[in-house]
C-alpha cells in the first residue's frame, strides 16, 4: 500500500494543484482566511479543530472554512468526518483533481499553485515531508508546526488514530471477532503503551455506544461467536504453551548474545531437527514400539547376554531386541479378549510410511516458504547492497562487549571491501589470466570428482572384504562405519583446502562450492553403502536387521568421530593456542599457526544433514533409531555450545543467516527425496526376508497394504477410486495440468518482474521531473530573472514528454516567463471581488499581483 502511494505521490501532486486552482477561482479570498484557520485552529476547539489539526500545513492554507463546516454538517459527528481520514482525503484530492482537471485550464491552476508555492518557498522541503508522513504505517498524519517541527502531543494522536480506526467497519462491530481484530490493530500501532490504552478505551466506548443502539444478536450468532471465542482462546493458550516451552531458551539467548543471529541459525537448525525427531519418536514409540513390547517377543528364543560392546556395534543382545525390524512380530493381538485386534504389521507399515511422507510434506513446505522469503522476495536487495549493509547490519541481539567489538570490526571491513570494490576500476581480466583461473577451477572440480569416485571404489572394496564376513564376535563390524565416517571427515578438510587454493573471487561462491562438494561426498558414500547392501543381500537370515545394524553403527560412530573426537582435537588446538599462541607474547616459530580453532558452521550443518539422512533410511529397519538420534542431537547441542563458548573463535566471514538456513533446508529436502525414492523401490521391488519381521509371509512389503485393499469388495468406493486414479490417462492429465499451471505462473511472474522494472523507471523519471520543476519554480518565485538558459532547459524537458494531459504544464512555461518580460502596470479595476486578496497580499511580491491580474483576465473572458 505504502509503495503504491509513493508512486501516486506525483499524481497527487498534480491533483492538488488542480484542486487549489478550483478553489481559488471560486473563492479568491480563501487564502487569507484559511491562513488564519491554520494559525488559530488550536484555540477554536470542537470537532472542526480536530479536522483542521489533522491536515498538514500545506493543506491548511487551502482548506476553505466553508468546506470544513460542510463536512461537519454533512456527517454530524465531527469525530467521524472523512476529512479526518488522511487516506480518504488523499484519494478525494486525487479524484477531484482528475475529474475536474479536464475542464480547468491546467496552466492557470498551475500558476496558482506556483504562486502559493512561492509564498512558502523557504519551506519547500516540508511539502515533501507531508507526503511522506502520510505514508507512515500507522496511517497517521502528524501535525507540523509552522517551523517544521513535529508536534506529537499524545492527545491529538489518540484522537487521530481513534478517528481513523473508527472508519473501519469490521473493527467496530460488537462481536468477539471484531474485538480480536481491534486488539491486533491496536498492537500494531507504533505508539507508547499509554497511548494505545487510551485508544483502546475510546474505541471500546464508541463500540459500546453503537452496540447499545443496535439490536441484540440472535441465538445462532451468539453460539457462533461463542465458538469462535473458544477457538481464539485455545489458539492463545497453545501459543502461550509454545512460547513458554521453547526448548533451550537460555542457551539460545546466550549464543545469540555472544555470537549474533548468524551463528544461532545453526543452533536453530539443530533444534528444529531435534524437535522433529522427538515428534517422530512420539508417534513411532506409541504406535510401533510400545505395542510390540506389549505383545511380547516371538517365542522363547535364547537371548544373548548383554555386553557393553553391543552398544557400539549394535549386535549381540541388541539384535534380538525391539531395536530392529527382525524382532517385530507379524501377529495381530489383543489385550482384552473379544475386543478389536491390533495388527502390528499394518501399524508398522502405516506409521512409518505416513510419518516419512508427512515429514516430506513438512520439509517441502518450509523449504518453499524459506526459499520464497530469502531468495525471491529479497531478490530486490541486489540493488540495495550497501543500504542493507548499513540498515540491517547491526545485530540487536548482541549482548556482549567482545561480540560487539567483533561486529564493529566486521562492519568496518565490509564497508572497506565495498569501497575498495567501488573505487577499483574493474580491470579487464587478461585472456591468459582468465584461462588460468578457469583451468584451476576445472582441475579442482576434476580432482574432487576423482577423489569422490576413488572413495566410492575403496568403500566398495572394504564392504566386499568386511561386509559379508561373520563378525558377530569381533570388532570388525565397526570397520566399515569407521572407514566411511573417517573418510568423510578427512575429505571434508581436503575439500576446504582445495577451495582455498582455488581463490574464488567471491567468498560466497567458495563457501557454496565447498558445501556442494561436501554434500556430494556424503551422498556418494551413503549411496554406495546402500547399493552394496541391497545388491549383496544374504540369501538367509534377516537382511533388514543387518542394514539396521549397519545404520546403527554408522550413527554411533559418527557421533564419536565428528562430535567427540573432533571436539577433542579442537580442545587440544585451543590448549596449544592458550599455552604457546601469539596471545601469550611468546613468539615461537609456530606461534602464528596456533590460532584458536574456527567454528565451522557448514561442516557442522552438513553433519546434521548426513545424520538425518541416515535416520530416515534407517527408520524402516530400526524404528527406535529415532530416539537414539534425538538423544544424539541433544548431546551434540550441548557439546557444540561448549565448543563455541569456550574453545572456538567465531568465523570471521559469515553467510546471511536466512539464506544459510534455506540452503540447509534444501539439502535436507534433497536427501529426504532420495530416501523416499529408495524406500519406494524397497517397498515395491525388493522381496522381504522370509524368516523374520512383521512382513513375513508376503513377498513384497507393499503387498500387505494391497491385501488390505483387496479384502474390500470390488464395488467398494475406495477400490474404485483407487483404480480410477491410477489409470495412466488420469496421471498424464494431472501431470499435464501441473505443467501448464507452472508455465502460466512462470509467465505471469516474468511479466510482473518486467512491470516492476517499468514502474521503477517511471518513478525515477517522475521524481526527476518534480525535482527539476521545484527547483525552477523556487528560483522564479524568489524573483530571479529567468535566463535564456533556463528557458531552454524547460523546453527540453517539455519536448521530452509529449503524451498525457499534464503536458501543457511542461510545454507551456511561457505564461510565467511572459510576465517577467511584460511591463508592470498598476492594478486597474480590481473591483470588490478581489478586495480581500489585494488586502491580504499587499505585502507580498509583484508575483502575486500578476496572479490576481490573471484571475481578473480569466473572469472577463
Amino acid at each position, binding site marked *: 500500500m*505504502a509503495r503504491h*502511494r*509513493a508512486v501516486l505521490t506525483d499524481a497527487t501532486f498534480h491533483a492538488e494543484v488542480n484542486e487549489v486552482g478550483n478553489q481559488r477561482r471560486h473563492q479568491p479570498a480563501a487564502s487569507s482566511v484559511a491562513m488564519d484557520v491554520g494559525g488559530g485552529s488550536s484555540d477554536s476547539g470542537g470537532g472542526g479543530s480536530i479536522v483542521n489539526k489533522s491536515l498538514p500545513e500545506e493543506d491548511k492554507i487551502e482548506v476553505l472554512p466553508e468546506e470544513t463546516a460542510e463536512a461537519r454538517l454533512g456527517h454530524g459527528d465531527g469525530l467521524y468526518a472523512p476529512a479526518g481520514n488522511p487516506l480518504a482525503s488523499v484519494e478525494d484530492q486525487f479524484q477531484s483533481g482528475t475529474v475536474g482537471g479536464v475542464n480547468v485550464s491546467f496552466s492557470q491552476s498551475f500558476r496558482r499553485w506556483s504562486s502559493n508555492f512561492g509564498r512558502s518557498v523557504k519551506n519547500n522541503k516540508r511539502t*515533501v515531508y507531508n*507526503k*511522506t508522513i502520510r*505514508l507512515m504505517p*500507522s496511517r497517521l498524519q502528524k501535525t507540523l508546526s509552522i517551523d*517544521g517541527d*513535529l508536534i506529537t502531543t499524545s492527545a491529538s494522536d489518540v484522537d487521530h488514530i481513534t478517528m481513523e480506526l473508527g472508519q473501519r467497519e469490521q473493527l467496530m462491530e460488537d462481536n468477539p471477532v471484531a474485538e480480536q481484530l481491534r*486488539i491486533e490493530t491496536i*498492537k*500494531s500501532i507504533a505508539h*507508547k*503503551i*499509554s497511548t494505545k*490504552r487510551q485508544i*483502546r478505551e475510546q474505541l471500546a466506548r464508541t463500540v459500546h455506544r453503537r452496540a447499545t443502539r443496535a439490536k441484540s444478536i440472535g441465538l445462532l450468532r451468539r453460539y457462533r461467536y461463542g465458538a469462535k471465542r473458544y477457538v481464539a482462546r485455545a489458539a*492463545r493458550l497453545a501459543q*502461550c504453551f509454545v*512460547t513458554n516451552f521453547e526448548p533451550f*531458551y537460555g542457551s539460545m*539467548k546466550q549464543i545469540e*548474545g555472544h555470537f549474533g*543471529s548468524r551463528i544461532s541459525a545453526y543452533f536453530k537448525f539443530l533444534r528444529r531437527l531435534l524437535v522433529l525427531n522427538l515428534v517422530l519418536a512420539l508417534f513411532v514409540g506409541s504406535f510401533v514400539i510400545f505395542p510390540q513390547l506389549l505383545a511380547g517377543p516371538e517365542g522363547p528364543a535364547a537371548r544373548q547376554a548383554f555386553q557393553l560392546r553391543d552398544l557400539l556395534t549394535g549386535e549381540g543382545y541388541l539384535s534380538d531386541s525391539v531395536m530392529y525390524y527382525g524382532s517385530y512380530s507379524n501377529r495381530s493381538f489383543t489385550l482384552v479378549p473379544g475386543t478389536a485386534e491390533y495388527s502390528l504389521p499394518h501399524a508398522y507399515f502405516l506409521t512409518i510410511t505416513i510419518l516419512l511422507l508427512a515429514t516430506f510434506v513438512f520439509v517441502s513446505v518450509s523449504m518453499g516458504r524459506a526459499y520464497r*522469503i530469502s531468495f525471491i*522476495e*529479497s531478490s530486490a*536487495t541486489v*540493488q*540495495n547492497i*550497501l*543500504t*542493507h549493509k*548499513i*540498515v*540491517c*547490519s*547491526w545485530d*540487536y*541481539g*548482541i*549482548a*556482549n*562487549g567482545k561480540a*560487539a567489538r567483533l561486529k*564493529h570490526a566486521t*562492519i*568496518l571491513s565490509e*564497508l*572497506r571491501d565495498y*569501497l575498495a570494490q*567501488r573505487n577499483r576500476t574493474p580491470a579487464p581480466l587478461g585472456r591468459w589470466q582468465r584461462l588460468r583461473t578457469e583451468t584451476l577451477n576445472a582441475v579442482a572440480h576434476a580432482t574432487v570428482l576423482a577423489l569422490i569416485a576413488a572413495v566410492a571404489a575403496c568403500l566398495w572394496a572394504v564392504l566386499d572384504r568386511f561386509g559379508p564376513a561373520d563378525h558377530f564376535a569381533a570388532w570388525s563390524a565397526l570397520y566399515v562405519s569407521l572407514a566411511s565416517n573417517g573418510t568423510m571427515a578427512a575429505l571434508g578438510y581436503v575439500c576446504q583446502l582445495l577451495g582455498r587454493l582455488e581463490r574464488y573471487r567471491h567468498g560466497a561462491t567458495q563457501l557454496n562450492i565447498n558445501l556442494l562438494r561436501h554434500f556430494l561426498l556424503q551422498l556418494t558414500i551413503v549411496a554406495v553403502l546402500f547399493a552394496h547392501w541391497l545388491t549383496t543381500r544374504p540369501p538367509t537370515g534377516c537382511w533388514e536387521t543387518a542394514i539396521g545394524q549397519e545404520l546403527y553403527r554408522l550413527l554411533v560412530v559418527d557421533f564419536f568421530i565428528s562430535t567427540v573426537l573432533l571436539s577433542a582435537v579442537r580442545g587440544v588446538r585451543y590448549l596449544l593456542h592458550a599455552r604457546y599462541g601469539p596471545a601469550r607474547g611468546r613468539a615461537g616459530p609456530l606461534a602464528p599457526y596456533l590460532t584458536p580453532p574456527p567454528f565451522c558452521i557448514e561442516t557442522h550443518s552438513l553433519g546434521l544433514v548426513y545424520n538425518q539422512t541416515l535416520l530416515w533410511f534407517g527408520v524402516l529397519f530400526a524404528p527406535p533409531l529415532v530416539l537414539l538420534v534425538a538423544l544424539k542431537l541433544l548431546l551434540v547441542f550441548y557439546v557444540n555450545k561448549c565448543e563455541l563458548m569456550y574453545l572456538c573463535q567465531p568465523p570471521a566471514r559469515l553467510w*546471511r*543467516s*536466512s539464506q544459510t538456513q534455506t540452503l540447509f533446508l534444501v539439502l535436507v529436502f534433497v536427501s529426504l527425496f532420495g530416501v523416499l525414492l529408495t524406500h519406494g523401490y524397497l517397498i515395491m521391488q525388493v522381496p522381504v526376508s522370509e524368516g523374520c519381521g512383521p512382513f513375513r509371509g508376503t513377498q513384497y512389503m507393499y503387498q500387505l497394504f494391497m491385501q488390505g485393499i483387496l479384502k474390500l469388495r470390488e464395488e467398494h468406493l475406495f477400490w474404485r477410486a483407487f483404480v480410477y486414479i491410477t489409470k495412466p490417462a488420469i496421471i498424464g492429465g494431472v501431470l499435464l495440468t501441473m505443467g501448464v499451471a507452472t508455465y502460466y505462473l512462470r509467465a505471469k511472474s516474468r511479466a510482473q518482474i518486467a512491470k516492476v522494472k517499468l514502474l521503477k523507471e517511471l*518513478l525515477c523519471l517522475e*521524481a526527476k521531473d*518534480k*525535482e527539476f520543476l521545484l527547483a525552477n519554480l523556487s528560483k522564479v518565485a524568489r524573483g530571479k530573472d529567468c535566463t535564456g538558459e533556463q528557458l531552454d532547459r524547460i523546453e527540453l524537458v517539455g519536448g521530452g514528454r509529449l503524451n498525457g494531459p499534464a503536458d501543457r504544464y511542461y510545454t507551456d512555461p511561457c505564461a510565467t516567463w511572459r510576465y517577467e518580460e511584460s511591463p508592470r502596470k498598476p492594478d486597474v479595476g480590481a473591483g470588490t471581488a478581489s478586495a480581500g486578496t489585494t488586502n491580504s497580499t499587499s505585502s507580498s511580491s509583484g508575483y502575486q499581483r500578476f496572479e490576481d491580474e490573471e484571475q481578473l483576465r480569466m473572469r472577463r473572458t
Partner: protein
Amino acid sequence: MGQANSQFSEDELQDYEDLTYFTKKEILYAHKKFKNLAPEKVGHNKNAKLSMSKVLEYPELKANPFGDRICKVFSSSNDGDITFEDFLDMMSVFSDAAPKAVKAEHAFRIYDFDGDDMIGRNDLKQVIQRLVDYNSDLGHNDIDQLINNILEEADLDDDGALSFAEFEHIIDKSSDFINSFRIRL
C-alpha cells in the same frame, strides 16, 4: 502461573497482554529483567522511572551502538528515561512476534537522529560512524562516498534523504532485517 506474589494484578497483566506482543508469563519475565536493573527502586514502585544511563546497563542495549537512540525513541517522556511500560513496549517491538511493519517504523525512528521524519545525510553519517565505532579508519571522504552510494541506491525520489516509504521499501525486501532487529527477552 505462580504470580501470587507478583506486583501485578490479573487485570493489569491482561491489559499488557492485549497491548503488547507478549504473553502474561513473558510480561512477568520482562518485569523481572527490568527489576534487575534497579532492584530496590523497582521493588518499591513497580512502574518506577529509570534514568537512561541505568537502562543502558541492560546487556543488549549496552552493546548496541544505538542504545541511547533506542531509549529516546521508546521513552514516553522523550528524554531517554524509561518506565516499565516503555521497557515492555521496547521488548515487545524487538520480540519475535512483532510484525515487520512495526519493527520497521521503530527502526526508522531510531536512525532518524534529528527527528525530522527523514533520514538525511547527517543521520546516515551518524549511523555509519556508530556502526564502525567512530573508527578513524573510515575517513570523511569514505563516509561521504558511502552516503552518496546509499542515496543513489535507495533514494527513489532524489530528494537527498530517505523517507519512511523508501526505508520501508528496503526493509520490506530484506529477509535479514527481521532476524537482526530482534532482542530475546
